[in-house]
Protein backbone atom coordinates (compact mmCIF):
# COMPACT_ATOMS: atom_id res chain seq x y z
CA UNK A 1 0.00 0.00 0.00
CA UNK A 2 0.92 3.67 -0.18
CA UNK A 3 2.12 4.74 3.23
CA UNK A 4 1.81 8.29 4.45
CA UNK A 5 1.65 10.33 7.63
CA UNK A 6 -0.33 13.38 8.49
CA UNK A 7 1.54 16.67 8.30
CA UNK A 8 2.26 18.45 11.59
CA UNK A 9 -0.72 20.54 12.71
CA UNK A 10 1.34 23.77 12.54
CA UNK A 11 2.03 23.18 8.84
CA UNK A 12 -1.62 22.31 8.19
CA UNK A 13 -2.75 25.53 9.94
CA UNK A 14 -0.36 27.50 7.80
CA UNK A 15 -1.54 26.07 4.48
CA UNK A 16 -5.25 26.45 5.30
CA UNK A 17 -4.78 29.97 6.72
CA UNK A 18 -6.29 31.85 3.71
CA UNK A 19 -9.53 29.83 3.72
CA UNK A 20 -12.56 30.07 5.98
CA UNK A 21 -14.56 27.16 4.58
CA UNK A 22 -12.69 23.95 3.92
CA UNK A 23 -13.50 20.40 3.06
CA UNK A 24 -11.31 17.82 4.75
CA UNK A 25 -11.43 14.95 2.34
CA UNK A 26 -10.28 11.57 3.60
CA UNK A 27 -9.29 8.54 1.59
CA UNK A 28 -10.57 5.17 2.71
CA UNK A 29 -7.95 2.76 1.44
CA UNK A 30 -4.15 2.92 1.82
CA UNK A 31 -3.80 5.94 4.09
CA UNK A 32 -6.69 4.75 6.20
CA UNK A 33 -4.83 1.51 6.86
CA UNK A 34 -1.74 3.42 7.99
CA UNK A 35 -3.79 5.67 10.30
CA UNK A 36 -3.16 8.83 8.31
CA UNK A 37 -6.27 9.75 6.34
CA UNK A 38 -9.41 7.68 6.93
CA UNK A 39 -12.73 8.79 8.54
CA UNK A 40 -11.28 8.75 12.05
CA UNK A 41 -8.32 10.94 11.10
CA UNK A 42 -10.57 13.35 9.22
CA UNK A 43 -12.76 13.76 12.33
CA UNK A 44 -9.81 14.18 14.68
CA UNK A 45 -8.13 16.68 12.38
CA UNK A 46 -11.31 18.75 12.04
CA UNK A 47 -11.65 18.97 15.84
CA UNK A 48 -7.98 19.82 16.23
CA UNK A 49 -8.21 22.65 13.70
CA UNK A 50 -11.26 24.11 15.50
CA UNK A 51 -9.44 23.87 18.84
CA UNK A 52 -6.31 25.54 17.51
CA UNK A 53 -8.39 28.38 16.02
CA UNK A 54 -10.11 28.84 19.38
CA UNK A 55 -6.86 28.72 21.33
CA UNK A 56 -5.23 31.25 19.02
CA UNK A 57 -8.27 33.52 19.21
CA UNK A 58 -8.91 33.23 15.49
CA UNK A 59 -12.17 32.89 13.63
CA UNK A 60 -13.21 29.24 13.76
CA UNK A 61 -13.13 27.68 10.32
CA UNK A 62 -16.19 26.05 8.81
CA UNK A 63 -15.18 22.51 8.15
CA UNK A 64 -16.97 19.86 6.14
CA UNK A 65 -15.83 16.29 6.64
CA UNK A 66 -16.04 13.57 4.02
CA UNK A 67 -14.16 10.41 3.17
CA UNK A 68 -14.29 8.66 -0.17
CA UNK A 69 -13.15 5.14 -0.80
CA UNK A 70 -10.25 6.11 -3.08
CA UNK A 71 -9.23 9.62 -4.13
CA UNK A 72 -7.20 8.22 -7.02
CA UNK A 73 -10.29 7.02 -8.91
CA UNK A 74 -12.84 9.21 -10.69
CA UNK A 75 -15.76 7.05 -9.74
CA UNK A 76 -15.17 7.79 -6.04
CA UNK A 77 -13.97 11.37 -6.53
CA UNK A 78 -17.35 12.31 -8.04
CA UNK A 79 -19.03 11.60 -4.70
CA UNK A 80 -17.23 14.63 -3.31
CA UNK A 81 -18.13 17.07 -6.08
CA UNK A 82 -20.93 18.80 -4.19
CA UNK A 83 -18.84 19.36 -1.08
CA UNK A 84 -15.91 20.53 -3.18
CA UNK A 85 -18.03 23.15 -4.95
CA UNK A 86 -19.47 24.41 -1.65
CA UNK A 87 -16.08 25.00 0.00
CA UNK A 88 -13.21 27.40 -0.64
CA UNK A 89 -10.53 24.70 -0.56
CA UNK A 90 -9.99 20.97 -0.18
CA UNK A 91 -7.58 19.68 2.44
CA UNK A 92 -6.90 16.24 1.03
CA UNK A 93 -5.84 13.44 3.34
CA UNK A 94 -4.82 11.21 0.45
CA UNK A 95 -1.45 10.30 -0.97
CA UNK A 96 0.11 12.61 -3.56
CA UNK A 97 -1.73 10.76 -6.31
CA UNK A 98 -5.06 11.40 -4.60
CA UNK A 99 -4.32 15.11 -4.13
CA UNK A 100 -3.44 15.45 -7.80
CA UNK A 101 -6.41 13.39 -8.94
CA UNK A 102 -8.76 15.80 -7.13
CA UNK A 103 -6.93 18.81 -8.61
CA UNK A 104 -7.18 17.29 -12.09
CA UNK A 105 -10.95 16.77 -11.85
CA UNK A 106 -11.72 20.10 -10.17
CA UNK A 107 -9.60 22.73 -11.94
CA UNK A 108 -11.00 25.65 -9.92
CA UNK A 109 -10.68 24.16 -6.44
CA UNK A 110 -7.52 24.84 -4.41
CA UNK A 111 -6.38 21.38 -3.24
CA UNK A 112 -3.98 21.24 -0.29
CA UNK A 113 -2.03 18.22 0.91
CA UNK A 114 -2.63 17.20 4.51
CA UNK A 115 -0.35 14.18 4.28
CA UNK A 116 3.28 13.53 3.51
CA UNK A 117 3.30 10.51 1.22
CA UNK A 118 6.26 8.44 2.27
CA UNK A 119 6.58 5.14 0.46
CA UNK A 120 5.11 1.91 -0.92
CA UNK A 121 5.25 -0.49 1.96
CA UNK A 122 3.62 -2.98 4.26
CA UNK A 123 2.43 -3.05 7.83
CA UNK A 124 5.21 -5.00 9.47
CA UNK A 125 3.51 -4.98 12.87
CA UNK A 126 0.58 -2.94 14.14
CA UNK A 127 1.79 0.65 13.82
CA UNK A 128 5.09 -0.21 12.12
CA UNK A 129 5.33 0.26 8.37
CA UNK A 130 8.32 -0.60 6.20
CA UNK A 131 9.28 0.42 2.68
CA UNK A 132 9.42 -2.53 0.31
CA UNK A 133 9.12 -1.21 -3.25
CA UNK A 134 10.18 1.82 -5.26
CA UNK A 135 7.98 1.04 -8.24
CA UNK A 136 10.99 0.92 -10.55
CA UNK A 137 9.02 -0.84 -13.26
CA UNK A 138 11.33 -3.80 -13.83
CA UNK A 139 10.88 -6.30 -11.03
CA UNK A 140 13.78 -8.66 -10.37
CA UNK A 141 12.60 -9.97 -6.99
CA UNK A 142 12.76 -13.53 -8.32
CA UNK A 143 16.52 -13.34 -8.46
CA UNK A 144 16.93 -11.83 -4.99
CA UNK A 145 14.80 -14.18 -2.94
CA UNK A 146 11.89 -11.70 -2.96
CA UNK A 147 13.84 -9.02 -1.10
CA UNK A 148 14.40 -5.86 -3.12
CA UNK A 149 17.97 -4.49 -3.09
CA UNK A 150 16.91 -1.37 -5.00
CA UNK A 151 14.56 -0.39 -2.19
CA UNK A 152 16.06 -1.99 0.86
CA UNK A 153 19.82 -1.55 0.33
CA UNK A 154 20.74 2.07 1.14
CA UNK A 155 23.14 2.09 -1.81
CA UNK A 156 20.91 0.18 -4.26
CA UNK A 157 23.73 -2.32 -4.77
CA UNK A 158 23.04 -5.20 -7.15
CA UNK A 159 26.15 -7.32 -6.64
CA UNK A 160 26.32 -7.93 -2.93
CA UNK A 161 26.74 -6.07 0.34
CA UNK A 162 28.98 -3.04 0.79
CA UNK A 163 31.79 -2.97 3.32
CA UNK A 164 29.64 -1.40 5.99
CA UNK A 165 27.32 -4.28 6.74
CA UNK A 166 27.88 -5.69 10.21
CA UNK A 167 25.92 -8.16 12.31
CA UNK A 168 23.09 -8.08 9.80
CA UNK A 169 22.54 -4.33 10.07
CA UNK A 170 22.94 -1.51 7.57
CA UNK A 171 25.75 0.99 8.10
CA UNK A 172 23.28 3.82 7.69
CA UNK A 173 21.12 2.88 10.66
CA UNK A 174 21.61 0.21 13.29
CA UNK A 175 17.85 -0.39 13.30
CA UNK A 176 17.75 -1.18 9.60
CA UNK A 177 18.35 -4.71 8.42
CA UNK A 178 21.06 -5.08 5.79
CA UNK A 179 19.07 -6.08 2.72
CA UNK A 180 22.01 -8.12 1.47
CA UNK A 181 22.24 -10.10 4.68
CA UNK A 182 18.51 -10.87 4.30
CA UNK A 183 18.93 -11.78 0.63
CA UNK A 184 21.91 -14.05 1.27
CA UNK A 185 20.25 -15.74 4.26
CA UNK A 186 17.04 -16.37 2.34
CA UNK A 187 18.74 -17.62 -0.80
CA UNK A 188 20.91 -19.88 1.35
CA UNK A 189 17.78 -21.32 2.96
CA UNK A 190 16.20 -21.78 -0.47
CA UNK A 191 19.37 -23.38 -1.86
CA UNK A 192 19.53 -20.60 -4.46
CA UNK A 193 22.73 -18.77 -3.48
CA UNK A 194 23.94 -19.44 -7.01
CA UNK A 195 21.69 -16.55 -8.06
CA UNK A 196 24.32 -14.22 -6.62
CA UNK A 197 27.50 -15.73 -8.04
CA UNK A 198 27.08 -14.31 -11.53
CA UNK A 199 27.70 -10.67 -12.33
CA UNK A 200 24.43 -8.77 -12.35
CA UNK A 201 24.65 -6.02 -14.98
CA UNK A 202 23.77 -2.38 -14.35
CA UNK A 203 20.09 -1.65 -14.00
CA UNK A 204 18.20 -0.04 -16.85
CA UNK A 205 16.52 2.85 -15.05
CA UNK A 206 14.34 3.83 -18.03
CA UNK A 207 11.39 1.99 -16.52
CA UNK A 208 11.77 4.05 -13.32
CA UNK A 209 11.29 7.75 -12.69
CA UNK A 210 14.56 8.34 -14.64
CA UNK A 211 12.52 7.72 -17.80
CA UNK A 212 10.20 10.64 -16.98
CA UNK A 213 6.63 10.38 -15.66
CA UNK A 214 5.25 6.98 -16.54
CA UNK A 215 2.00 6.01 -18.20
CA UNK A 216 0.52 2.54 -18.28
CA UNK A 217 -1.81 1.88 -21.18
CA UNK A 218 -4.00 -1.21 -21.16
CA UNK A 219 -5.47 -1.22 -24.68
CA UNK A 220 -7.66 -4.18 -23.78
CA UNK A 221 -9.41 -2.12 -21.11
CA UNK A 222 -9.90 1.11 -23.03
CA UNK A 223 -13.55 1.60 -24.00
Amino acid sequence: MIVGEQKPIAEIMEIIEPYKKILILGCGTCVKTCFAGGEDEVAVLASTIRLVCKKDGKEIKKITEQTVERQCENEFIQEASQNISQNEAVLSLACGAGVQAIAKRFPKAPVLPGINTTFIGIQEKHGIFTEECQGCGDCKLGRFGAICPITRCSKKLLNGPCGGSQKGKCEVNANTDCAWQLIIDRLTDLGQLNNLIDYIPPKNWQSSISGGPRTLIREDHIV
Partner: protein
Amino acid sequence: MTNISNLQKVLKEGKFAVTAECGPPRGANTAVVNKKAGLIKGFVDAVNVTDNQTAIVRMSSIAACSHLIQAGCEPIMQMVVRDRNRIALQSDILGAWSLGIKNILCLSGDHQTFGSQPDALNVFDIDSMHLIRTVKNMRDEGKDMSGFNLDEPPRMFIGAAANPFADPFEYRVIRLAKKIDAGADFIQTQCIYNMDRFKKWIRLADDEGLTDKVHILAGVTPLKSAGMAKYMKNKVAGMDVPDSVIKRMESVPKEKASEEGIKICLETIAELREIKGVHGIHLMAIEWEEKVAEIVKNAGLMPRS
Protein backbone atom coordinates in the same frame (compact mmCIF):
# COMPACT_ATOMS: atom_id res chain seq x y z
CA MET B 1 53.68 8.63 -21.25
CA THR B 2 54.09 4.92 -20.54
CA ASN B 3 50.89 3.01 -20.17
CA ILE B 4 51.95 0.97 -17.18
CA SER B 5 51.73 2.52 -13.74
CA ASN B 6 54.49 2.29 -11.19
CA LEU B 7 52.24 0.33 -8.83
CA GLN B 8 51.43 -2.11 -11.62
CA LYS B 9 55.15 -2.55 -12.34
CA VAL B 10 56.04 -3.18 -8.67
CA LEU B 11 53.30 -5.78 -8.28
CA LYS B 12 54.05 -7.41 -11.62
CA GLU B 13 57.66 -7.85 -10.55
CA GLY B 14 56.46 -9.64 -7.44
CA LYS B 15 57.74 -6.97 -5.06
CA PHE B 16 55.94 -6.15 -1.83
CA ALA B 17 54.06 -2.94 -2.59
CA VAL B 18 53.40 0.02 -0.33
CA THR B 19 50.59 2.47 -0.91
CA ALA B 20 49.46 5.31 1.30
CA GLU B 21 46.44 7.57 1.42
CA CYS B 22 46.00 11.26 0.90
CA GLY B 23 42.75 13.02 1.74
CA PRO B 24 42.35 16.20 -0.33
CA PRO B 25 41.65 19.44 1.56
CA ARG B 26 38.22 20.89 2.36
CA GLY B 27 39.11 23.82 0.19
CA ALA B 28 40.93 24.68 -2.98
CA ASN B 29 44.37 25.06 -1.43
CA THR B 30 46.95 23.23 -3.56
CA ALA B 31 49.61 23.78 -0.90
CA VAL B 32 47.89 21.20 1.35
CA VAL B 33 48.19 18.53 -1.35
CA ASN B 34 51.77 19.47 -2.12
CA LYS B 35 52.70 19.32 1.56
CA LYS B 36 51.29 15.80 1.85
CA ALA B 37 53.08 14.82 -1.36
CA GLY B 38 56.36 16.06 0.11
CA LEU B 39 55.85 13.89 3.21
CA ILE B 40 55.29 10.63 1.34
CA LYS B 41 57.25 11.06 -1.89
CA GLY B 42 59.83 8.31 -2.24
CA PHE B 43 58.35 6.22 0.58
CA VAL B 44 55.43 4.66 -1.27
CA ASP B 45 54.76 3.17 -4.70
CA ALA B 46 51.50 5.02 -5.14
CA VAL B 47 49.10 7.10 -3.10
CA ASN B 48 45.32 6.80 -2.90
CA VAL B 49 43.44 10.04 -3.29
CA THR B 50 40.05 9.79 -1.67
CA ASP B 51 36.85 10.89 -3.40
CA ASN B 52 34.86 13.07 -0.99
CA GLN B 53 35.50 10.55 1.78
CA THR B 54 32.84 10.14 4.46
CA ALA B 55 30.62 12.12 2.08
CA ILE B 56 32.26 15.43 2.95
CA VAL B 57 32.94 17.88 0.14
CA ARG B 58 36.64 18.13 -0.64
CA MET B 59 38.82 19.07 -3.58
CA SER B 60 38.00 16.59 -6.35
CA SER B 61 40.04 13.42 -6.46
CA ILE B 62 40.95 14.06 -10.11
CA ALA B 63 42.31 17.54 -9.39
CA ALA B 64 44.24 16.40 -6.31
CA CYS B 65 45.66 13.44 -8.30
CA SER B 66 46.82 15.85 -10.96
CA HIS B 67 48.57 18.02 -8.35
CA LEU B 68 50.25 14.91 -6.92
CA ILE B 69 51.58 13.99 -10.36
CA GLN B 70 53.04 17.50 -10.65
CA ALA B 71 54.64 16.96 -7.25
CA GLY B 72 56.25 13.72 -8.39
CA CYS B 73 53.93 11.17 -6.74
CA GLU B 74 51.92 8.47 -8.46
CA PRO B 75 48.23 8.69 -7.53
CA ILE B 76 45.52 6.06 -7.29
CA MET B 77 42.31 7.92 -8.02
CA GLN B 78 39.49 6.73 -5.80
CA MET B 79 36.11 6.98 -7.42
CA VAL B 80 32.77 6.41 -5.70
CA VAL B 81 29.45 5.74 -7.40
CA ARG B 82 27.54 7.72 -4.77
CA ASP B 83 27.83 11.15 -6.38
CA ARG B 84 27.87 10.62 -10.13
CA ASN B 85 25.83 8.66 -12.62
CA ARG B 86 27.38 6.41 -15.25
CA ILE B 87 27.72 9.25 -17.74
CA ALA B 88 29.70 11.45 -15.34
CA LEU B 89 31.80 8.53 -14.07
CA GLN B 90 32.93 7.51 -17.56
CA SER B 91 33.60 11.09 -18.55
CA ASP B 92 35.76 11.58 -15.44
CA ILE B 93 37.68 8.36 -16.13
CA LEU B 94 38.57 9.65 -19.60
CA GLY B 95 39.52 13.04 -18.19
CA ALA B 96 41.65 11.44 -15.48
CA TRP B 97 43.57 9.32 -17.98
CA SER B 98 44.14 12.39 -20.13
CA LEU B 99 45.79 14.02 -17.10
CA GLY B 100 48.14 11.08 -16.58
CA ILE B 101 46.23 9.28 -13.81
CA LYS B 102 46.96 5.57 -14.28
CA ASN B 103 45.42 3.85 -11.27
CA ILE B 104 41.81 3.81 -10.16
CA LEU B 105 40.12 2.37 -7.09
CA CYS B 106 36.43 1.66 -7.68
CA LEU B 107 34.20 2.07 -4.63
CA SER B 108 30.56 2.43 -3.74
CA GLY B 109 31.32 5.19 -1.20
CA ASP B 110 30.15 6.03 2.29
CA HIS B 111 26.47 6.82 2.45
CA GLN B 112 25.82 10.56 2.42
CA THR B 113 24.02 10.44 5.75
CA PHE B 114 27.47 10.16 7.40
CA GLY B 115 28.70 13.37 5.83
CA SER B 116 28.28 17.08 6.33
CA GLN B 117 25.38 17.26 3.86
CA PRO B 118 23.06 14.38 4.76
CA ASP B 119 20.24 16.15 2.93
CA ALA B 120 21.94 15.46 -0.42
CA LEU B 121 20.40 13.30 -3.14
CA ASN B 122 22.59 10.27 -3.73
CA VAL B 123 23.03 8.62 -7.10
CA PHE B 124 24.10 4.95 -6.95
CA ASP B 125 23.16 4.59 -10.62
CA ILE B 126 25.64 1.72 -10.91
CA ASP B 127 27.46 -0.18 -8.15
CA SER B 128 31.19 -0.60 -7.54
CA MET B 129 31.17 -3.96 -9.38
CA HIS B 130 29.73 -2.24 -12.45
CA LEU B 131 32.34 0.53 -12.21
CA ILE B 132 35.15 -2.05 -12.18
CA ARG B 133 33.75 -3.73 -15.29
CA THR B 134 33.18 -0.39 -16.98
CA VAL B 135 36.82 0.64 -16.55
CA LYS B 136 37.94 -2.80 -17.73
CA ASN B 137 35.77 -2.60 -20.85
CA MET B 138 36.97 0.92 -21.55
CA ARG B 139 40.57 -0.24 -21.18
CA ASP B 140 40.51 -3.68 -22.83
CA GLU B 141 37.76 -3.28 -25.40
CA GLY B 142 38.18 0.45 -25.94
CA LYS B 143 34.43 0.87 -25.56
CA ASP B 144 32.28 2.94 -23.24
CA MET B 145 29.14 1.48 -21.65
CA SER B 146 27.11 2.25 -24.76
CA GLY B 147 29.54 0.24 -26.89
CA PHE B 148 30.99 3.35 -28.53
CA ASN B 149 34.59 2.95 -29.67
CA LEU B 150 36.71 5.38 -27.68
CA ASP B 151 39.37 7.46 -29.30
CA GLU B 152 42.29 6.54 -27.00
CA PRO B 153 41.10 4.19 -24.28
CA PRO B 154 42.03 4.85 -20.64
CA ARG B 155 44.53 2.08 -19.84
CA MET B 156 44.07 2.14 -16.11
CA PHE B 157 45.29 -0.30 -13.47
CA ILE B 158 42.09 -1.24 -11.72
CA GLY B 159 41.66 -1.55 -7.99
CA ALA B 160 38.77 -2.51 -5.76
CA ALA B 161 38.15 -2.66 -2.04
CA ALA B 162 37.44 -5.64 0.16
CA ASN B 163 36.38 -5.65 3.78
CA PRO B 164 37.08 -8.97 5.49
CA PHE B 165 35.40 -7.60 8.62
CA ALA B 166 31.99 -6.89 7.19
CA ASP B 167 29.13 -9.38 7.21
CA PRO B 168 27.96 -11.78 6.00
CA PHE B 169 31.49 -13.18 6.26
CA GLU B 170 30.85 -16.25 4.11
CA TYR B 171 29.81 -14.11 1.17
CA ARG B 172 32.90 -11.87 1.32
CA VAL B 173 35.07 -14.28 -0.65
CA ILE B 174 32.34 -14.78 -3.28
CA ARG B 175 32.16 -11.01 -3.62
CA LEU B 176 35.94 -10.80 -3.95
CA ALA B 177 35.78 -13.39 -6.74
CA LYS B 178 33.10 -11.32 -8.46
CA LYS B 179 35.26 -8.21 -8.26
CA ILE B 180 38.18 -10.11 -9.78
CA ASP B 181 35.95 -11.46 -12.56
CA ALA B 182 34.65 -7.94 -13.16
CA GLY B 183 38.22 -6.77 -13.75
CA ALA B 184 39.96 -5.86 -10.50
CA ASP B 185 43.76 -6.07 -10.81
CA PHE B 186 44.46 -5.20 -7.20
CA ILE B 187 42.54 -5.13 -3.94
CA GLN B 188 43.00 -2.86 -0.96
CA THR B 189 41.42 -4.03 2.27
CA GLN B 190 39.83 -2.26 5.21
CA CYS B 191 42.27 -1.59 8.11
CA ILE B 192 43.28 -4.74 9.89
CA TYR B 193 43.17 -4.95 13.68
CA ASN B 194 41.53 -8.37 13.93
CA MET B 195 44.33 -10.46 12.47
CA ASP B 196 42.59 -13.80 13.10
CA ARG B 197 39.63 -12.81 10.99
CA PHE B 198 41.86 -11.38 8.27
CA LYS B 199 43.85 -14.61 8.12
CA LYS B 200 40.67 -16.65 7.91
CA TRP B 201 39.44 -14.49 5.02
CA ILE B 202 42.67 -14.62 3.03
CA ARG B 203 42.94 -18.37 3.58
CA LEU B 204 39.47 -18.81 2.09
CA ALA B 205 40.46 -16.53 -0.81
CA ASP B 206 43.63 -18.52 -1.29
CA ASP B 207 41.70 -21.82 -1.24
CA GLU B 208 39.62 -20.44 -4.11
CA GLY B 209 42.78 -19.55 -6.02
CA LEU B 210 41.95 -15.86 -5.81
CA THR B 211 45.29 -14.69 -4.41
CA ASP B 212 46.94 -15.81 -7.66
CA LYS B 213 44.49 -13.81 -9.73
CA VAL B 214 44.70 -10.50 -7.91
CA HIS B 215 47.20 -8.49 -5.87
CA ILE B 216 45.99 -8.01 -2.32
CA LEU B 217 47.24 -5.01 -0.39
CA ALA B 218 46.40 -5.29 3.29
CA GLY B 219 45.11 -2.12 4.94
CA VAL B 220 46.78 -0.76 8.08
CA THR B 221 46.08 2.38 10.08
CA PRO B 222 48.29 3.49 12.97
CA LEU B 223 46.23 4.38 16.03
CA LYS B 224 46.93 7.73 17.69
CA SER B 225 45.09 7.09 20.95
CA ALA B 226 42.78 4.73 22.81
CA GLY B 227 39.98 7.18 22.00
CA MET B 228 40.64 6.78 18.28
CA ALA B 229 40.57 2.98 18.65
CA LYS B 230 37.20 3.19 20.42
CA TYR B 231 35.85 5.63 17.86
CA MET B 232 36.84 3.31 15.02
CA LYS B 233 35.27 0.34 16.77
CA ASN B 234 31.99 2.08 17.51
CA LYS B 235 31.49 4.76 14.91
CA VAL B 236 33.23 3.78 11.69
CA ALA B 237 31.18 1.54 9.43
CA GLY B 238 32.69 -1.85 8.71
CA MET B 239 35.53 -1.64 11.26
CA ASP B 240 36.54 -4.45 13.62
CA VAL B 241 38.79 -3.29 16.46
CA PRO B 242 39.14 -6.07 19.06
CA ASP B 243 39.00 -5.16 22.76
CA SER B 244 42.56 -6.45 23.18
CA VAL B 245 43.81 -3.66 20.89
CA ILE B 246 41.83 -1.04 22.80
CA LYS B 247 43.16 -2.38 26.12
CA ARG B 248 46.71 -2.24 24.81
CA MET B 249 46.25 1.38 23.76
CA GLU B 250 44.78 2.17 27.19
CA SER B 251 47.61 0.41 29.01
CA VAL B 252 50.18 3.09 28.16
CA PRO B 253 50.25 6.71 29.40
CA LYS B 254 48.43 9.14 27.10
CA GLU B 255 51.62 10.79 25.87
CA LYS B 256 52.96 7.38 24.82
CA ALA B 257 49.79 6.27 23.06
CA SER B 258 50.73 7.32 19.55
CA GLU B 259 54.08 5.55 19.93
CA GLU B 260 52.23 2.40 20.97
CA GLY B 261 49.89 2.81 18.00
CA ILE B 262 52.84 2.85 15.64
CA LYS B 263 54.34 -0.16 17.40
CA ILE B 264 51.10 -2.10 16.85
CA CYS B 265 51.11 -0.98 13.23
CA LEU B 266 54.68 -2.20 12.69
CA GLU B 267 53.90 -5.55 14.31
CA THR B 268 50.85 -5.88 12.06
CA ILE B 269 52.92 -5.13 8.95
CA ALA B 270 55.56 -7.70 9.98
CA GLU B 271 52.84 -10.32 10.45
CA LEU B 272 51.16 -9.43 7.15
CA ARG B 273 54.41 -9.84 5.23
CA GLU B 274 54.49 -13.48 6.28
CA ILE B 275 50.99 -14.26 5.01
CA LYS B 276 50.64 -16.04 1.69
CA GLY B 277 48.57 -13.97 -0.69
CA VAL B 278 49.43 -10.57 0.80
CA HIS B 279 51.26 -8.64 -1.90
CA GLY B 280 51.67 -5.35 -0.15
CA ILE B 281 50.27 -2.96 2.39
CA HIS B 282 47.98 0.00 2.10
CA LEU B 283 48.96 2.43 4.83
CA MET B 284 46.09 4.70 5.78
CA ALA B 285 47.64 7.21 8.18
CA ILE B 286 44.53 9.33 8.46
CA GLU B 287 45.66 12.99 8.57
CA TRP B 288 48.97 11.70 9.94
CA GLU B 289 50.97 11.60 6.72
CA GLU B 290 54.12 12.76 8.55
CA LYS B 291 54.36 9.27 10.06
CA VAL B 292 54.32 7.39 6.75
CA ALA B 293 58.06 7.68 6.15
CA GLU B 294 58.89 6.55 9.69
CA ILE B 295 56.56 3.55 9.47
CA VAL B 296 57.79 2.46 6.04
CA LYS B 297 61.44 2.81 7.14
CA ASN B 298 60.98 1.02 10.46
CA ALA B 299 58.98 -1.73 8.81
CA GLY B 300 62.03 -2.46 6.68
CA LEU B 301 60.24 -1.56 3.46
CA MET B 302 62.84 0.88 2.12
CA PRO B 303 64.12 1.61 -0.40
CA ARG B 304 61.14 1.95 -2.70
CA SER B 305 61.88 1.90 -6.38
